[in-house]
């Protein structure tokens, strides 16, 4: 792996050398494939969700000003409410991701890493 095609001055030789067998072995491990799938499925779908939700909010602010001006309660209108919901969703996604990776990603990654160091 990590295949500097030119010799790099200054880089200590601690980097795994080209075609590192450790990395190769892990890459072929079905548990790694599982880790990769779990990670990608989660972060890609979450990214799609929050980007779409943010974009919707910006588009509404630009093109649906009548809708955004509707008062929900007191002086609070749809625009302010959706803005605050962006805060809520950002906090929520961060919390969900932390717990997801603690439960579903970290144990697998640690297992693979431990074996990778021994091999």
């Amino acid at each position, binding site marked *: *792996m990590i295949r500097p095609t030119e010799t790099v001055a200054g880089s200590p030789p601690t980097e795994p050398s080209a075609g590192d067998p450790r990395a190769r072995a892990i890459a072929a491990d079905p548990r790694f494939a599982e880790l990769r799938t779990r990670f990608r499925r989660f972060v890609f779908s979450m990214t799609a969700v929050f980007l779409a939700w943010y974009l919707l909010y910006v588009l509404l*602010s630009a093109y649906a*000003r009548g809708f955004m001006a509707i008062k929900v309660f007191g002086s609070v209108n749809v625009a*302010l409410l959706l803005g605050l919901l962006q805060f809520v969703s950002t906090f929520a996604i961060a919390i969900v991701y932390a717990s997801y990776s603690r439960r579903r990603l970290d144990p697998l*990654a640690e297992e693979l890493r431990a074996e990778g160091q021994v091999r």
Partner: protein
Amino acid sequence: MKALNFAAAEPSHRGLTIGLFAAFVVITVGITVWSSRKSKRALDFYDGGRAFSGLQNGIAISGDYMSAASFLGIAGMIALSGYDGFLYSIGFLVAWLVALLLVAELLRNSGRYTMADVLALRLRQRPIRAAAGVSTIVVSIFYLVAQMVGAGSLVSLLLGVSGDGAKIWVIVAVGALMIFYVTVGGMKGTTWVQIVKAVLLMVGAAVMTVMVLAKFNFNIGDLLSAAASQSGKGDAFLQPGLKYGATDAWSKIDLISLGIALVLGTAGLPHVLVRFYTVPDSKTVRKSVNWAIAIIGVFYLMTLAIGFGAAALVGTKAIKTADPSGNTAAPTLAETLGGGAGTGGGAAMLAFIASVAFATILAVVAGLTLASSSSVAHDLYANVFRRGPVEDTQVAERKEVRVAKVSAFFIGAIAIGVSIYARELNVAFLVAVAFAIAASANLPAILLTLFWKRFTTFGAKCGIYAGLIAAVGLVLLSPVCWGGTSSGRPAVALTAAQATKCGVAKDSKQVGNATALFSCTVKAPFPLENPGVVSIPIGFLAAIAGSLVRRNKREEESHADLEVRALTGVGAE
């Protein structure tokens, strides 16, 4: 900018302000010297020894990120334009999800000191480090100049000193201090400066928020109604449209363009990226970004209270008279909350908030200088210019760090020079430009190298340079440089000074933007102020097209190894 009325009427706060400024400088200089003594190896300069905890680094990330533009700028924008200022702050926050989910942990596992380290794992060192180094330096200089010119006007304003000489001295002093923090303290010292600053900023904002809410008996509805009525704009103040309000199609696209650049730019900002390397492992990075999201989110909620509070208690008109850009909204509100101009409490609050703003500026410029000098030394010097075998690793490392310190000095000097030259210009837009460049040049390369197997060196070069050139080029063709009237920019009323500067009659109808950098009367060839909506797709498409045109089997295969390292941490340093 006019001198503030409170400055003239009430000089007593000045001594206090200077005292607090000085206290901050003394404390941070002390911390910097102390931490430099504790550094063990030369390379601590880049990563501070990788020993910071998640909470510490989370606070430091917030400190690096919450610039004076966030604090004074957004509070001011909310005070002047209500809801539209709030919209800006949301982009700054949501952006952290890109960093959390897609970048931070993977970057920590696969890189060492700079953004280019991750690219260099798969791609050819020299061309890729050269490209990444160039874009890092460009982003940093844009951001630095915005902060330092802002510092010049702001500190003179807050201290109540006017005149050109004062501004120049402030810029030089800020520049000299930031060079000191970086060259003496390296990453460790700079991180502690960020932590001190972030705590001060949060305390300052919290005190003001509680005081504002207390004035309205903690009834947010009352605060909103008072802000709406005191703004002179009524309900429109709480709705979208006051700032990005023009009804023409371009200004709406401009708003969207800004929003996209803010969200995608954060995870490509060099001074944010280097922060991910200061902790021991990727789990700690996750913790620090989560802390940062919590701190930054709470902070922007507080700026909402501060901005609306300023509109309600000071009044939009009074804020605009003091400073047309609204930057003094927060300090003026502080004075009002403390008891008003001429009272001891008012002077104390004003001095406190002014020194918080000063600390904010100093810390952010130090973070930027550190990130860019690291890139000069580690990317350009060590891996592009230096050739031949290295005699001794330790000697080479010490030499590399010496180069980093020398480059911090030069980058600082360039930033001081450019800022002095640009001190009278309206450079607030440069922050948005820096975000747009980071999103167009850096983010495509980072994401594609991490997630796309077929990404190649040629693709990375295409993406970085095309994104960089597109973003900078479009700004040079935009209405911030060319101020002629157009459909989105109707003629503005000119002051006598502006008419003279633009070389037109005072009742001329040719000028749409009197603060344009190149010409007030020539119409801009590109209609948007924010290039992101065009330049970000250009960056991504160029990177993808370049990779498809020149495929590289070996670089494709190396992606699997990068993934193992990024996801499991095997081989991570």
